[in-house]
């Protein structure tokens, strides 16, 4: 079976969430890989949420807000843009490929754009393959689970591990 990416989306209530509702009302069909978490404004999205989503197993994170100048709360989306530009650099530095985190401006009238964006992102993330941070965490920690065996074989009398 081909890999189905898991994408966590944070959509602002007034534009992108509404656009996703509109996509639904218009019965547009798009890939079922995205799970939307509603926030009032994209500005509520803390970079910690994005990182946490990756750490908990998301293959991609999509953040949707109102177009610049259109924020329901005047300028929340600019705050989002600024901090997410920095987050983007940090994610890159941490080895998370471009395209796994995406910020899109989708207005309440752009149901079609929800569809296009989701499909495009799913395709691109699928091409990147699984991120699987939880799996990586487990993989990384194998080296400390193996210690006991290692130490015991070297000096079996000396080591008695708590774990």
């Amino acid at each position, binding site marked *: 079976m081909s890999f189905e990416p898991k994408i966590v989306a944070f959509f602002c209530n007034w534009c992108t969430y509404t656009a996703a509702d509109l996509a639904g009302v218009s019965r547009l069909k798009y890939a079922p890989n995205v799970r939307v978490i509603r926030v009032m404004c994209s*500005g509520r999205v*803390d*970079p*910690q949420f*994005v*990182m*946490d989503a*990756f*750490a908990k197993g998301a293959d991609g994170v999509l953040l949707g807000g109102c177009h*610049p100048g259109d924020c329901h709360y005047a300028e929340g989306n*600019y*705050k989002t*843009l*600024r*901090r997410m*530009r*920095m*987050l983007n*650099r*940090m*994610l890159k*530095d*941490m*080895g*998370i490929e471009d395209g796994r985190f995406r910020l899109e401006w989708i207005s309440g009238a752009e149901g079609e754009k929800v569809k296009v964006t989701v499909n495009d992102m799913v395709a691109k993330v699928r091409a990147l393959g699984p991120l699987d*941070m939880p799996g*990586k*965490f487990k993989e*990384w920690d194998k*080296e*400390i689970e193996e*210690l006991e065996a*290692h*130490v015991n074989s*070297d000096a079996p009398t*000396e*080591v*008695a*591990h*708590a*774990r």
Partner: protein
Amino acid sequence: MPDKPKVAFYWCASCGGCEEAVVDLAEDILKVVEAVDIVLWPVAMDFKKADIAARPDKSVAVAFINGAIRTSEQEEWVHMLRRKAQVVVSFGACANSGGIPALANQFKKEDILKFVYEDCPGIDNPQKIRPQTSTVDEGRTLTLPVLHNMVRSLDQVIEVDYYLPGCPPTPKIIMSAVQAILAGKLPARGTVLSPDIALCEECKRKDSKPADLALAEFKRPHQVQIDPEKCLLAQGLVCMGPATRSGCEALCPSGNMPCTGCFGPTSRVKDQGAKFVSSVFSNIVPKEEKDIDAVLDGIPDPIGTFYRYGLSKCILRRKLN
């Protein structure tokens, strides 16, 4: 007279600064020595591993462990100490969150070894010899610990009861922690033993911080004549104070240098770097992507800047390769 409580000090991947900090207690150290029996302190006293191993479980009242965990030897030691000690205190930034050593989590182990033993300027190693975990020399087998693939905080290896933050922890918070332990007045397990409020609270420059920073540029300390009175962020310097736990009495800002975040975040924050970014960058001046990028370019090494002491505790833990 009952036995004095037994105390162990141990160091893992650290610079020795935390040991210095204990010595920095100055005359107070005498009070400590008077009150306790030190059963392990590799930097200062001659105890062997076997001495500790021989002790019954939970026979040590407190183990203070500093340094991050990078090798199997450190790992083995801390497991043993966890078993022998009733209370384990993670001592200092390295033990708490990886500290400076954890910056190595941006690189693969192989790349680090290759650089250190082959590519580093000044290295003369034509045979490209690398340390081995086991070497036979004249019939004897010599062993070295395994270098792990990543640097871990202490609590990523064993359970930790308390944390003393700082690089290093200041004498004041060490002393109050020791007193609390001796008096048996311990807070809930897992607590960081310094005030759960950010550094600005105790910073002398606090009042000079304008409400609206409106930063259009970031500068590094060597690029500016730092005003000794004014809020450092307001001067365009990356001061991590707002995202960093207090307790150090704003040592660095008082010394005219920005806070680099060694006390770690408050209990409400999972990821100090991410949260700092969320705060400071939300309100920079530009609105257009390219202008924003120009401001961000003022911070050439974001990971090294925002996770200087805490990359092990970054939600993502390390760079993926």
